[in-house]
């Protein structure tokens, strides 16, 4: 609208004085019509948090792990890997489009298990990606170009906020299946099965492998089995998003159970993996995108097309983080340190969940907070309503997203009592 208006002004000026009109065009901007983009809901939380001067303030918006002092945590296996890498004095030549081979191989092994048939047969292809986002985007682009089925991708309701724009930008359409039950703060199993049973054949269904974001609500194994059955019946293409392997339960095999079960059941899945959280490599952008194909020949064709998709976006992926991750995954000593540190992070979160619930009970809350303990991973869907969230922020300087989601990683033994106080105050 603004652009149309300014054109009118220019034409008027042009009529009065042609040279003035030209001058106006030169002095106006190409970008006059570009609107201010809406602020990112999660970043907005961090911005407001930064401005707050309350010494007791808490930032429960950010999805990054913090230690019990509230500080970022660089894993010691990462530091050790970096030291090893420095001594090797490697060159900085371009990686192939598909990334560091050592990394993609161990990335796949981590997800599927070292002895998985999909690895032995060569029918899996894994490419290195720009962390989880980059992986999802490549996957979305791949589906958009090659998937012969419906354009619809079914996300759980709710899902990670960025899923929708990623798929949309890639040209796919979004639909949802029931997932979170606000009345129980748990899994709407019947609703999910009901909705999934109605999804048109060959549609794409997105499943969070573990530690569902934002709710922290995961299906139990028996429930996964039924989901697998119905998905198979409907002939749906499964796209797993696994951003928290190891981070959810503390056990990497347990967290990958659903992915491996689906493979076993014959689903040829798409899989996005991120090493941002489980290795604390956030800013290094380490991820993988896998396609489990019919056979090795198909995997080769798919790989060639993935490269064609990647090349015009960023040519080839960054080395540093992948090299660190590969070193950890390949070096037995570092691998075992890593398993320990992942467990440590997961256990601290679990402990914070328990302490929060204990704290709420101590405050005298009569609400049922069991879901805080039942939910898993970094996030907790507290069940707080927007007005309660607003009060919590205004009166207690506790910053979180409007949907009631808190990042447990931002909770420490030092501030969990204060958090319990605040939550109780707004919910009693």
């Amino acid at each position, binding site marked *: 609208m603004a652009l149309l208006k300014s054109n009118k002004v220019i034409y008027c000026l042009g009529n009065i004085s042609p040279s003035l009109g030209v001058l106006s065009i030169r002095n106006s901007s190409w970008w006059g019509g570009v609107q201010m983009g809406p602020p990112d809901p999660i970043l907005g939380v961090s911005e407001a948090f930064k401005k707050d001067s309350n010494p007791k303030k808490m930032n429960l918006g950010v999805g990054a792990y913090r230690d019990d002092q509230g500080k970022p945590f*660089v894993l010691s296996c990462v530091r050790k890997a970096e030291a090893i890498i420095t001594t090797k004095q490697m060159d900085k030549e371009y990686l192939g489009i598909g990334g560091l081979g050592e990394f993609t191989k161990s990335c796949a092994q981590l997800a599927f298990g070292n002895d998985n048939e999909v690895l032995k047969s060569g029918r899996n292809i894994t490419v290195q990606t720009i962390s989880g986002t980059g992986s999802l985007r490549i996957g979305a682009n791949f589906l958009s170009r090659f998937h012969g089925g419906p354009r619809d991708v079914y996300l759980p309701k709710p899902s990670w906020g960025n899923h929708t724009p990623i798929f949309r930008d890639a040209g796919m359409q979004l639909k949802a299946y029931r997932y979170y039950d606000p009345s129980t703060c748990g899994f709407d199993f019947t609703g999910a099965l009901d909705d999934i049973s109605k999804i048109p054949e060959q549609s794409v269904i997105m499943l969070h492998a573990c530690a569902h974001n934002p709710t922290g609500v995961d299906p139990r194994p028996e429930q996964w089995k039924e989901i697998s059955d119905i998905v198979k019946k409907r002939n749906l293409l499964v796209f797993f998003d696994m951003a928290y392997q190891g981070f959810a339960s503390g056990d990497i095999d347990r967290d990958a159970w659903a992915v491996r079960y689906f493979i076993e059941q014959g689903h040829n899945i798409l899989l996005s993996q991120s090493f941002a959280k489980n290795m604390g490599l*956030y800013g290094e952008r380490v991820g993988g995108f896998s396609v489990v*194909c019919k056979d090795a020949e198909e995997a080769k064709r798919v790989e060639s097309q993935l490269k064609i998709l990647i090349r*015009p976006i960023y040519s080839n*992926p960054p080395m*540093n983080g992948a090299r660190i991750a590969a070193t950890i995954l390949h070096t037995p000593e570092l691998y075992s340190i890593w398993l320990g540190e992942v467990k440590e992070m997961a256990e601290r979160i679990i402990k914070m969940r328990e302490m929060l619930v204990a704290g709420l009970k101590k405050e005298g809350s009569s609400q049922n907070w069991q879901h805080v303990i039942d939910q898993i991973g970094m996030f907790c869907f507290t069940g707080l309503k927007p007005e309660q969230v607003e009060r919590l922020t205004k009166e207690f300087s506790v910053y979180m997203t409007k949907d009631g989601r808190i990042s447990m990683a931002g909770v420490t033994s030092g501030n969990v009592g204060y958090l319990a106080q605040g939550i109780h105050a707004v919910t009693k």
Partner: protein
Amino acid sequence: MSVFCEVSQAAPVAVFKLSQDFNNDQFPNKVNLGVGAYRTDEGKPWVLPVVKKVEKIIVHDDSLNHEYLPILGLPEFRSSASKIALGDDSPAIQENRVGAVQCLGGTGALKMGAEFLRRFYNGNNNTKTPVYVSAPTWENHNAVFASAGFDDVRPYKYWDAENRGLDLAGFLGDLESCPAHSIFVLHACAHNPTGTDPTQDQWQQIAEVMMRRNLFVFFDSAYQGFASGNLDKDAWAIRYFVSMGFEMFCAQSFSKNFGLYNERVGNLTIVARDADNLKRVLSQMEKIVRTTWSNPPSQGARIVAVTLTSPELFSEWKENVKTMADRVLLMRAQLKAKLQALGTPGTWDHITEQIGMFSFTGLNSKQVEYMVKERHIYLMASGRINMCGLTSKNIDYVAESIHATVTSV
């Protein structure tokens, strides 16, 4: 029945296939003149001494962590990188109308710029806006703009094969006759693949037409410092266009001039009319970044930022860059001298007139095939050679091979 049974095998990217073939070749005197990466006189990759130094600093700094960068990237990187292109004292920077997006290499910067233009330039989502790339150009330019959604990516006249130089008349002619608001991808210096750059006078003529016809300026700057050995000299065209008042994009790569190829260090510098326009543009760039890679990788940007913001390290870097540029200049001089000494038919002045990493030899595809198959010298089908692939040890063999090729094919 697989969902992907219709997926056909894609052809491999030519330049990478060339390297692969080279690697598989057992011939002892093989030479790789393909991929655009710097090599020392021993034919080895070169990690810049200043980079090694800075990496040590980073790895020993316990205060650093691996947290997410902001969506638009490391602030110190973005601003210091833009300063490199525009100059420390750039009026546009002082006027607060220069911004930047840290991207994954030059490719990523081109991609972000292309995605933004497709959404917001020349109306909303106007995929029909013509995008002009030089004939010839870097083979990925076409794909970047096409994948961003532009339907109409066309060549503009650039290389005069007959005279082995710039086809200025053709270039200007395309600028005069193209649809208004067309986007032009300009190589800031060291044109890839021809190594042929406009002179300052020619740039002035180009700028005049572009301003008059309201064409969009999109610079691709992948070799700043690498062309002449002097950063400011290599940025002359960019700075001239800024001084002429253009709003423009400049995709910068630090792959070559920092030797940071695999860390994917790039910067999309945005010059806007004013701070308000810049602000809105950056806010929309964030949306595009968020659905592509969320936020960029930190290691490479850190290395560059630390280097550029320390006077000592910055000096050392400039020397490292000059070392690379000087070796290339030496190889150019020597190759030409040898071909002339051999009496190889044709003129070879273009080898020293051309600038940067690449040279368009003028060899035709049959001659190239002969070079690859018979002489085990790997170069692109276009006749493009990477001067960095030449060393004091192989330059005689290469000169003789060119001689043999030209006289027999």
